[in-house]
């Protein structure tokens, strides 16, 4: 079956006074219908920027999508002009963000904003749209939805606002929902509620979800597949179990090793990854992670590794020495 969305060689640059920032470098992957994909990485790895690039939401200037194709339903999204793109946004692909306080317009009621979204993309009358908005708020678990339609964003708590955002995102039944760090700003117990909600909604409505986050704990519960990004490129990708249990890239290994776990035996040491993430203004020629990697060789510094398959499966990794490293890990 053809994938829902296929991204080929996406490249995004930011042209600033200090130089050219290589934010997204040769990113390629695809998503199936109804799949939950986790995109994981730290700040500056390009996870948010690549999603915004897909939706052509990069401010130009200073940003520019310098190459690549994004195939969705037979069209290359990057070739569409602004008018056509607006039809896709919200209706076929919806996006929700980290801070609902700034993504919801504080001077309009929540109901108004959902109705607006509905009326742009569908033929519903105002009355019908309002009904539907009430249904949506109930769907996302906001009690007393009908009356809450007339409340303003500041009258909702953080968790409720995020639910309202999700309602807005789902209003037109998109095929793909992109969630950019949706629970990062929420308390742990509220985060658990939202994750639960999204999992249930996904089962009910069947849309694909791209969950972007830096939290490896959250994606472990949510995702079926994971893309790990570093310095603008995907450095490891695979099914959830492969990534956590058969980790192959030294960065991912290091990252998992530096996380404390609630079920760790007492006295477990955290193995920190030394050094700093690379400067996107001056990415090295070779592997971007080489400077911090305990296993680096001259080849790593000189040549950027390509993505290769691990054991002929859909688990891919971009590292010259992954096999030797795997061998060492097995022996430890």
């Amino acid at each position, binding site marked *: 079956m053809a994938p829902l969305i296929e991204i080929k060689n996406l490249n995004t640059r930011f042209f600033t006074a200090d130089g050219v920032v290589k934010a997204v470098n040769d990113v390629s992957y695809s998503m199936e219908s109804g799949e939950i994909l986790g995109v994981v990485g730290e700040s500056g790895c390009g996870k948010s920027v690549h999603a915004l690039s897909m939706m052509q939401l990069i401010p130009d200037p200073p940003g520019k999508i310098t190459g690549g194709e994004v195939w969705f339903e037979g069209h290359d999204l990057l070739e569409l002009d602004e008018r056509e793109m607006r039809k896709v946004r919200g209706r076929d692909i919806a996006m929700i963000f980290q801070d609902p306080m700034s993504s919801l317009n504080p001077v309009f009621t929540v109901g108004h904003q959902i109705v607006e979204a509905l009326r742009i993309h569908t033929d519903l009358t105002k009355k019908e749209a309002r009904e539907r908005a009430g249904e949506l708020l109930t769907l996302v678990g906001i009690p007393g939805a009908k009356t809450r339609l007339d409340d303003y964003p500041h009258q909702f708590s953080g968790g409720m606002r995020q639910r309202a955002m999700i309602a807005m995102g789902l209003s037109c039944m998109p095929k793909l929902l992109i969630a950019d760090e949706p629970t990062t700003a929420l308390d742990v117990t509220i985060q658990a509620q939202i994750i639960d909600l999204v999992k249930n909604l996904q089962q009910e409505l069947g849309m694909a979800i791209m969950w972007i986050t830096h939290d490896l704990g959250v994606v472990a519960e949510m995702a079926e597949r994971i893309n790990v990004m570093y310095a603008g490129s995907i450095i490891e990708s695979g099914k959830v179990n492969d990534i956590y249990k058969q980790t192959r890239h030294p960065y991912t290994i290091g990252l998992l090793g530096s996380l404390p776990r609630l079920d760790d035996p007492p006295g477990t040491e955290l193995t920190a990854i*030394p*050094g700093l993430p690379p400067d996107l203004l001056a990415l090295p020629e070779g592997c971007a992670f080489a400077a911090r990697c*305990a296993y680096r060789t001259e080849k790593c510094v000189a040549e950027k590794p390509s993505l290769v398959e691990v054991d002929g499966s859909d688990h891919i990794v971009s590292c010259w020495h992954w096999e030797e490293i795997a061998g060492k890990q097995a022996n430890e």
Partner: protein
Amino acid sequence: MTNITSEEIIETDYAIREHRSLWIDAWQRLISSKTALLGMFIVTVFVVSSVGAHFFWEYEPKKDLDYSLKLKPPTLVANEEVPSVHLFGTDKLGRDIFRRVVHGGWNSLRVGIVAVGISLILGGTIGLISGFYENMNMTSMELITLFGVTGFSLGLLSAWIAGQPIQAFLLAGLGVVAAAFPEFQKDKPTRMLIFAAAGGILLAVPALSVSKTTALICGLYGVLSGMLISRALDGNFFSSTMMRFMDIILSFPGYLLAIAIVAFLGPGLEKGMIAIGIVGIPVYARLTRSAVLSVIQKEYILAAQSVGEGHGRILFHHLMPNILSPVIVQTTMGLAAAILSAAALGFLGLGAIPPEPEWGAMLGDSYRYLASGAWWAVLFPGIAIMLSVLGFNLLGDGLRDALDPKLRT
């Protein structure tokens, strides 16, 4: 395959950016803007010509008079009719306009600097202290000072009524006592009663030597003042009071207020400077207060407190360097506004006393001759005003962009 040890990796831990001083950064941004450069150029020409003229090109306005040259158009070469060169022509008293424009610059520059200086120092201090004590608890010494000053200020009114300066000091003393015993009957009505009574007595008794009515008035006023002094005054009280005074000043239209002050103080450029300075105080007070409020929330201020740094040190080391940016921008724009205000006053015949050269006054002298064709007498002083104001505004805009922290990653 060789493993790199983590010690070697730590050495690649670098400071992520080249070492650049913050000011050099800002300077480079400033000179990269063409309009800012233009503004800088104009301002430099203005300042250099004004200062140079004042010190090196003698001019005695009282002796400058030649009716034979009355209202002559600009001449570049001396000829029969007009035996001297007058680049900008002459005015109604035959004076060389070019010379007066250049010297007028010196007066405008002085007005700008003194007026803005008054506004900045007085307004800035008020704003700084208001913003600071809104967020910081006052030490006991500071509280004593606050109460004392409050008492003194309150006392001034009744001192004026009774003509007895000592009344101000008496209330100041009452304030100090109130501050020194903050726990005495705290939150109880007895405290208010005691201080009210004390206030009434303290002010009424000396006033008895004037007249019974005065004593009554002062006594009542003392009771009210005592009630105020008994309350737990704090930084918020000071700030609110100061800001309300600022609001009062702001509620008058600027020029009208300046005119009223000049009418009160008398004519002369110096009085004009004071008037313009006073009118500008609230602007700087509000500006510095809001700048202080935004900086004081930052954690490095809290860190300074946790280290045990005193208020003085926090104010000078931490606050002031970080509120410079908006103040610098406002000062530059403020100079433009001051020059314009001085010209307005001069035009109306207030401000500079004739025959002092002052652009606004020159306009005021000459505009009635426009109808008879003497355009030069109006154009050149007008252009001088316009260019100098433009120059400072452009420079101020450029500074705002250069110092804007949002542009710094």
